[in-house]
């Protein structure tokens, strides 16, 4: 390895740490989905369809999450409405 390479490397993240970060994100995401009931994706689609009757939104402007706590489950619905000026 040349000295030049040595200095370059300092700037860039190692590929192993990139791999770890990517894995942590995707695994956490997939674990979340694992605990969802089977009807969840369909329900999410239908909720979006209902909202779209009134407001024009994209799929990625709606996040639906189910949090399971000890004795209760919370359905969290987060919708980003478009700018008012765009109306």
């Amino acid at each position, binding site marked *: 390895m040349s000295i030049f390479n040595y200095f370059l490397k300092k700037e860039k993240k*190692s*590929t*192993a740490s990139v*791999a*770890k970060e990517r894995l942590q994100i995707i*695994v956490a995401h*997939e674990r979340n989905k*694992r605990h969802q009931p089977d009807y969840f994706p369909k329900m999410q689609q239908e909720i979006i369809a209902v909202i779209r009757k009134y407001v024009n939104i994209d799929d990625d402007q709606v996040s639906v999450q189910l949090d399971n706590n000890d004795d209760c489950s919370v359905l969290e619905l987060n919708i980003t409405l478009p700018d008012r000026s765009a109306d």
Partner: protein
Amino acid sequence: MAKIIVVTSGKGGVGKTTTSAAIGTGLALRGFKTVVIDFDVGLRNLDLIMGCERRVVYDFVNVINKEANLNQALIKDKRTPGLYILPASQTRDKDALTMEGVQTVLDNLAKDFEYIICDSPAGIEQGAQMALYFADEAIVVTNPEVSSVRDSDRILGILQSKSLKAEQGGTVKEHLLLTRYNPERVAAAEMLSVADVEDILAVPLLGVIPESDAVLKASNQGAPVILDHESEAGQAYLDAVSRLLGEEVEHRFLEVQKKGFLKRLLGGKK
């Protein structure tokens, strides 16, 4: 009561069959009567890795279909006393294994054996689910590589929801076995480290098998690599078997080995 251990991974080619052969042989070497079952129907390979491919007459599916009895299908290993192999069928019928059939065979084997090792096929389809369904413990074989780690996490999810133990409200005891580990590349930050993989999967570490020429040599000859006491991989598998039996053994081969002057000069290989 026999202990049923599934060797699984989700991803293919990470070393499930190599591990099943090594762990099965290791348990038999320690004096436990052990059978290794190949669940990979259609793509039988455990027989080749264990060097008994020419002695297969009847297989797992024949036993399930009552075309042969268990004693006819079991192959006694020629090298290691107390070790038996139940080969998979080469049929192309995907549904050849039935849940009731598998259960009956396992129940019968449990009367005779102390350890039943189930070598799972790759994937998360019916065959893989069948292999893990009745398991008491699971060895999840993982390579330090993104797709393998992700697939291992998926298979862990299936173990935690779709196994018999899980359905009864219990848990399958999980073990992480990291294979094809390359300390040089880890030191160069080009490969996920043991700690990285443990961090992500959060499963107790059973062992780390270093990448080794001995594994291919062993499969070339049809002799489980654990019998190669000279090799690092063989020794690492012996350690893993000890840990499986509850012994505390320190992990080896995790650091870069310093090459001696002569070895460096001659380009020595492990």
